[in-house]
């Protein structure tokens, strides 16, 4: 754990690149002032970013731990801190602390398995870290399927990377979908949960879900319908957080703190918790 | 101390529930002790019989609860209002905060409510039972063999000491006799503060407000504070701070609140009643009421539904701002 004694005191981070992904999502590249990664992390972990005077908020680290040069955060514009970040230009300093939370069990549970990633909208951000980690250590995992959907083609995050890198990898199948037909789109049209059922995957995979709560709910139902066991399905939660270390007391679901015990939860464990997320 | 009894109220409420006039009753629920009553919605006669309580500690003003509770009822909700509560009731109606048709008001007489902290100041901790006996209150404690007999007037809640009215200004039905607006001397304490030098007054409020823990109970209990989103709860307001960051902020919070309810505050005294630190917050509001009375003529918020408050009602006789300013300067 970093900064054991000073967990609330952040480091300085510098935004070195801002990529416009969709009309409301930008991806920020962040390093320390001396050009290094702020800290090491595991796939699925998060970091607290802040803009002094505006606020601090938790974001999943979207870049893979295998990227040794920088970290990336894909951030949707939806509140004070994110509004401010969306106006930031390269060279802007922010603060960063972390990593927080339990990562996906990429080195044990996932090892040797076929993997199915299912994401909706900005929900791809936390999964990108895992996907790229698994692609990096390709021989440790079986077949990889990625189902990703968004409102429209323009709302698909990391589109270039998906088309140019993920789709061209051997043993990686990408299934894209958008909610409504659109000119210039000859791919699948329809919601993610239905598309997953249509695709009808083998059930001996580990599935990882991330997206809006409603998408997670229906996709999980769909996966169970086609025979998946909840013990093989993982998802990540997002609640309001302030400290990141299980002390400020607001991100708990039952006795579990999303910042410390999550954000990654196995769906059967999640089912044991009260439905307050 | 109270002239009306618990049984009379239960019987009235049961009758109105049974004959279908109302579908539920907003009343006082029995606590662990004789003084810790909780505002409670009773849905059946059985619930009333088991849990309804009425004694000298039923101080809570129910008017504000109607904003949330009346909307939830299928039929009418019965509310029991003391004279002072009816002013808040009217003021809330003036501000269109609930539907009058959803409420059935039974006005109940009030002889003044007791403050348990005053009882404890006399009898100490360890109160096992409190009962009313005419003008006296009998207190049984852990530490005294015989009940301690105290004069009810000595433990009267602060706001009841300066009760402004025994008259119900709103009701569908009245239990007991019609009361009168009474001489309250409620501005005496304000006058005492006005007579202080600015430094003395500052020191007085500094001392009082230094105890504030920003629990927001004053605001949350206040029948004039019914904004759906309070500025102090809005992270984008720039003033949303949960604790007193410094002594300036404590004053800021209370003074802004006093300004915001000026002209609408009926002087019900809930703010001071609920303050865990016994800050006499009602004096801030009373200062505004006194000023409004002096500048624009006597005005009692909530006296009638639909009244135009002087601060939002322009007349050609209105005081010029300069006159107000000059008076403030004289007082400094």
């Amino acid at each position, binding site marked *: 754990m970093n900064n*054991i*004694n000073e*967990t609330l*005191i952040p480091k*300085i981070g510098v935004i070195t690149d801002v990529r416009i992904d969709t009309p409301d999502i930008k991806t920020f590249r962040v390093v320390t002032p001396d050009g290094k990664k702020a800290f090491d992390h595991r796939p699925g972990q998060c970091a607290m970013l802040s803009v*002094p*005077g505006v606020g*601090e908020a938790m974001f999943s680290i979207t870049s893979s731990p295998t990227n040794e040069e920088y970290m990336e955060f894909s951030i949707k514009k*939806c*509140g004070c801190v994110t509004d401010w970040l969306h106006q930031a230009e390269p*060279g802007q*300093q*922010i*603060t960063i602390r972390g990593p927080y939370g339990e990562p996906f069990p990429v080195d044990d549970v996932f090892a040797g398995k076929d993997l199915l990633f299912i994401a909706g909208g900005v929900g791809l951000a936390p999964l990108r870290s895992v996907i790229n980690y698994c692609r990096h250590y390709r021989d440790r995992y079986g077949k990889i399927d990625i189902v990703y959907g968004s409102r429209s083609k323009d709302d698909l995050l990391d589109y270039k990377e998906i088309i140019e890198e993920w789709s061209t990898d051997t043993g990686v199948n990408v299934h894209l979908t958008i909610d409504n037909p659109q000119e210039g789109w000859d791919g699948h049209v329809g919601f993610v949960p239905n598309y997953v059922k249509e695709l009808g995957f083998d059930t001996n995979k580990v599935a990882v879900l991330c997206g809006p709560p409603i998408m997670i709910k229906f996709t999980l139902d769909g996966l169970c319908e086609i025979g998946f066991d909840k013990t093989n399905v993982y998802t990540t939660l*997002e*609640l309001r957080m*302030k400290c990141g270390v299980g*002390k*400020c*007391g607001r991100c*708990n679901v*039952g*006795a579990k703190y999303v910042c410390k015990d999550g954000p990654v939860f196995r769906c059967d464990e999640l089912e*044991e918790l*009260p439905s307050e997320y | 101390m109270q002239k009306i009894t618990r049984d009379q109220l239960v019987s009235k409420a049961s009758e109105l529930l049974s004959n279908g006039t109302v579908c539920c009753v907003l009343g006082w629920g029995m606590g*662990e*002790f004789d003084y*810790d009553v*909780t*505002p*409670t*919605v009773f849905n059946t006669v059985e619930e009333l019989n088991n849990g309804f309580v009425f004694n000298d500690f039923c101080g*809570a003003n129910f008017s504000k*609860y109607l904003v949330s509770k009346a909307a939830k009822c299928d039929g009418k909700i019965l509310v029991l209002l003391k004279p002072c509560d009816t002013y808040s009731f009217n003021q809330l109606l003036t501000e269109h905060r609930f539907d009058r048709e959803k409420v059935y008001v039974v006005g109940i007489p009030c002889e003044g409510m007791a403050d348990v*902290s005053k009882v404890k100041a006399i009898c100490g*901790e*360890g109160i*096992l039972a409190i009962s009313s006996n005419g003008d006296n209150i009998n207190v049984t404690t*852990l*530490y005294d063999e015989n009940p301690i007999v105290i004069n009810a007037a000595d433990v009267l809640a602060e706001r009841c000491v300066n009760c402004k009215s025994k008259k119900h200004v709103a009701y569908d039905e009245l239990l007991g006799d019609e009361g009168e607006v009474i001489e309250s001397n409620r501005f005496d304490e304000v006058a005492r503060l006005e007579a202080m030098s600015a430094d003395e007054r500052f020191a007085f409020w500094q*001392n*009082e407000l230094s105890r504030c*823990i*920003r*629990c*927001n*109970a004053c*605001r*949350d*209990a206040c029948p004039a504070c019914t904004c759906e989103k309070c500025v102090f709860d809005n*992270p984008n307001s720039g003033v*949303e*701070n*949960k*604790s007193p*960051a410094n002594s300036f902020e404590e004053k800021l919070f209370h003074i802004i609140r006093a300004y915001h309810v000026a002209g609408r505050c009926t002087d019900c005294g809930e703010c001071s*009643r*609920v303050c*865990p*630190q016994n800050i006499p917050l009602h004096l801030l509001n009373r200062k505004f009421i006194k000023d409004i009375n002096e500048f624009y003529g006597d005005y009692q918020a909530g006296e009638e539904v639909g009244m135009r408050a002087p601060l939002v009602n322009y007349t050609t006789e209105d005081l010029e701002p300069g006159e107000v300013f000059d008076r403030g300067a004289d007082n400094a």
Partner: protein
Amino acid sequence: MRKCSLDKINLIFAEIAKNAELYLPVDQNDGSAAYKKWEEGTAWSNKLNTVKSPKDFFFPQTEDLMQFKTQGKNIEIVDTRSALQDFVIFGVRACDVKSFDILDRVFLSEPVDSFYASRRKHGVIISLACTRPSETCFCKTFDIDPANPTGDISAWKTESEIFFAANTEKGAALLDKLSSLTEECDDAAVLEQKEKINAIMDKLPLKNLTTDAFGGGKTNELFNAPEWDELSSACLGCGTCTFVCPTCQCYDIKDFNTGNGVVRFRCWDSCMYSDFTKMAHGNNRLTQKERFRQRFMHKLVYYPENNDGLFSCVGCGRCLAKCPISMNIVKVMKKIGGKKDE
């Protein structure tokens, strides 16, 4: 064990205050007591307890965490902490001493909260046995013995004397410094005092309150209990219970632009507040019922689940005395635990 006459208590205070800041319960002008710094002439309150708990000493209601200086696109983080002085808190009741253990498990578990830890390191606690518990006391429910308060030094007060016993090295060192004002004694008077207290404890109205229905692992059993609706029905959503509670430790972190740099501070927060869990795109606890339930489930189920069965309540009775609508943990425990008429 050492003792001294109560006539000499101010000499004791003066001696302690020579080397450390001394805080003790003092009467305020509204009739309640609060911890204040002792100075020559400060009178020790006779009240059973203070309105605000002594958690402030280790977890202040507001504290600055750091300062930011910004220039153009650059930020500088300034550590604004100054070195802490040793301090002594005198007269802490058994319930409140226990609350420090409960807070420790939050703030001193990894990763350690350095702000809290350094205050803890510098503080010496002199506890005080109760002599006249209130009807609102229920510390026994949580296995706290008001006749045997812990802390660095335990103290017992009789009509004319005060007795001290050191429990820790810090306590022993402080008691040593008081040796010229105190004399060695046996524990007969203290034993007698303890018996008196125990006799009173048996007469308290809440003596039968039990935690049987609560504890770790009870989430699914209790979370959807129908009683939460009624219990939370009148809740105003204020923070009184939270802020007078010795074990409530939720906090917020906020930035304040001073006009000359930004101060990031931490302040107490309340799970009873509507914006506690509010995010830009939603709120997972939309109504007061959910917030109310969270507070009590945390104290009675979630906290024990994560802390070896220890409950996050010490039975001090502050919420019983201060809730504007007289709703409190005792009523919740009786109603949810089904022990209403015990």
